[in-house]
């Protein structure tokens, strides 16, 4: 066989490459395929409204839990609105709410819109730290003109309830670790 290299060592090496190439190709191919179909887009509430996210598509919505919007039904369902300055999205959730889920706090919910425009959340992301604001939420709030960094008052929704430590929420993006 003149195509194959003559030395035994080189043939073995070629063998390794011949085995490795399909495995690596499979890994890259699977990743590319999954990166097209298995990713979740993130929107702020007003952005999600404007873009008319189709019902049934899994997305993440991040904003602030609108004060006064949380209704806890006896059957375990929770309804609330995710808001930024330019709009709000009504959401419902049946699951264990994170311990830091509060009105006026930042929240990221993953789920899909139903036909009536209600956002049915499958997960509500918990933050282990009450001083922490998800980066995407900060960005989304900035986009909708709500974020005033450094003025010490945090986001300016009507009657925002600051975290109980009394520290401004903006600490999370600028301040010291805790």
């Amino acid at each position, binding site marked *: 066989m003149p195509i194959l290299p003559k030395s035994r060592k080189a043939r073995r090496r070629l063998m390794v490459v011949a085995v490795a190439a399909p495995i690596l190709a499979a890994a890259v191919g699977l990743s590319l395929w999954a990166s097209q179909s*298995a990713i979740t887009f993130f929107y702020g509430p007003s952005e999600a409204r404007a873009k008319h996210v189709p019902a049934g598509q899994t997305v993440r919505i991040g904003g602030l839990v609108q004060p006064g919007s949380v209704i806890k039904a006896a059957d375990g369902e929770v309804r609330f609105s995710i808001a930024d300055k330019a709009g709000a999205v009504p959401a419902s959730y049946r699951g264990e709410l994170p311990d830091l889920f509060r009105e006026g706090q930042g929240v990221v919910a993953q789920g899909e819109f139903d036909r009536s425009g209600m956002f049915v959340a499958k997960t509500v992301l918990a933050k282990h730290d009450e001083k922490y604001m998800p980066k995407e939420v900060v960005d989304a709030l900035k986009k909708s003109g709500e974020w005033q960094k450094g003025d010490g008052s945090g986001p300016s929704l009507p009657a925002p309830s600051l975290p109980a430590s009394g520290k401004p929420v903006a600490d999370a993006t600028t301040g010291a670790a805790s």
Partner: protein
Amino acid sequence: MIAELGAFCMMLALALSLAQVGLSAAGRIRQSPVLQGAGEGAGIGAFLMVAIAFASLMSAFVRSDFSVQNVVENSHTAQPLFYKIAATWGSHEGSMLLWNLCLTGFGAVIIIAGRHLPRNLKSTTVATQGALGVLFLAYTVFVSSPFLRLANPPVEGNSLNPILQDPAMAIHPPFLYSGYVGMSVVYSFAVAALIEGRVDAAWARWVRPWTLAAWSFLTVGIMLGSFWAYYELGWGGWWFWDPVENASFMPWLAGAALLHSAIVTEKRGALLGWTVFLSLCTFTLSMLGAFLVRSGVLTSVHAFAVDPTRGGVLLVCLGIAACTAFGLFAWRAPQLKGGGLFAPISREGALVLNNLFLSAATATVLIGTLYPLVRQALTNEPISVGPPFYAMTFVPLMIVTLLLVPFGPLMAWKRGDIVGALQRLWVAAVIAVLAGILVLAVVQPHKALTAAGVALGGWLVAGAIAEIIERAKLGRASAGESARRLKGLPRGAWGTTLAHMGLGIFVLGACFETTFKAELAQALTPGESMKLGGYELRLDKVGTVEGENYTAEQATITATKNGSVVCTANPERRVWPGAGGQATSKVAICVQGPSDLYIVLGDPRPRADGQTSHLIRSYWNPWARFIWLGPIMMALGGLVSLSDRRLRFALPKAARASAAAGLAAEPAE
């Protein structure tokens, strides 16, 4: 004073690490034992200084010294002593101090235990470890000091985050960091091997036990973190493919690949370049994890308090360490002379295949973790990558890997016999298929995918046992002969079997739990009950209990099955006044054999009839215990292998002697 002592010791440690690098390198170049010894002394000094600094931070926490900012932010006088101590590494700054303690500590171990190492290799390794110390000590001293004082000390602290006040979480960081930073030793040895231009048996005999030990610690650390997320967060899940979880999983995968390729390097002197490359990759991924977790570039459900500025500095540290190492690799690796030809079908071939799959799987996790960053940089669209991505990429690769696992140990070195291996494994294959069919037939609802998963788990467990049976010639030789062979088996063989069995048990648990778990939430008033998975849960009462630093609403729930009481559960909702009134849930778990009945007490909900009901959320998690048992067995397998006399480091002479003895006792090795 004690905080200043700590800060001062950190600066001394930095200076000593610089001296360690300079003196060891100079000693190596000039071939001067005096300079080399001085470098080693500096390394031990650096460790002692970091240890004193760590002790002084811990003492500030124990005494609740609120003039120290870090203590104010992470402690409280009412916190139990155990959590005051654990708070030392509960913060960003404190955890990096722990990182430094491990880094310099492992450096000291190389210096003390490496007496028999070749002199040049040792000096270069000590210098490299010192250089890593300089990077991370400088980070701590200049941008992340835990010893900053406050001008106006408050009378009370903000408390350690209540969610971290948990035994598993308190010991999770020391295990995790021993694992992460244990890989730094392997990195230093790899860099030293590249500088010295040779990889020999002495090198591999050091790298392998370090990898095994670090990997075992990392396994326990990840398991503890996952177990904590399972019962503390109250979501009933144990792995979310979250960036922070992936950050620990990538070095684990790369470490698993490394500890297999290091076997080939040690036993057969082959795959030299590849083992060195993996050594560099593993610690680079550890550092990448440290960066991802602290910089906040990725949104995680497990938010560490993040700081983009410091994240940038960490990225620079990571960049320096990684670029130097991989640059050196590109330049020097071609000069590494590898020996040991082997046929494609052989133990070496099987381990190469294992490495290919593990590296490809690591790559998919890396792509999934970093893809949101790349995508956002390119298109400015924030996205997240979750479980569906990994189900499409990581899982298929891993299934093939796991199918191949039992073949490896049954292959001979150099030239294996695939037909022979198949003959020895057919019983295991039959057991696996039967297990799958049994699950498909017996467990309702019928799920083919779960049956396949159980068959895979059964294949791994039966395959691991088949190896021991084969080696002992059970059933083929006389009972006495088999017993003698079993006794003579090296610990390494037992370790392999234990770890591979653990893998199988984990697969069983993960498949069963994921596909058969049931969930139910209902608001109940005392006296009412709900039904889940054959159990009836009756809410008896809801009362109040006082903890050391929290107040809790505690429910008493009686679980019955077929009319007989199986357990009384007391889930709690805790409110932490010291932590600004933060509320957490304490999940109650009734362990039913390998399965968990998992009960969470939700918030009170007034009903139309005026009574107050409580939301009770319960999960039936069948075989969930196997998910933790598996990794514990893997880590134990690692430790058992480590106790193998032939692997004990610092004893190259004894090791050589017993390796010869082992070779005589067991020709297959």
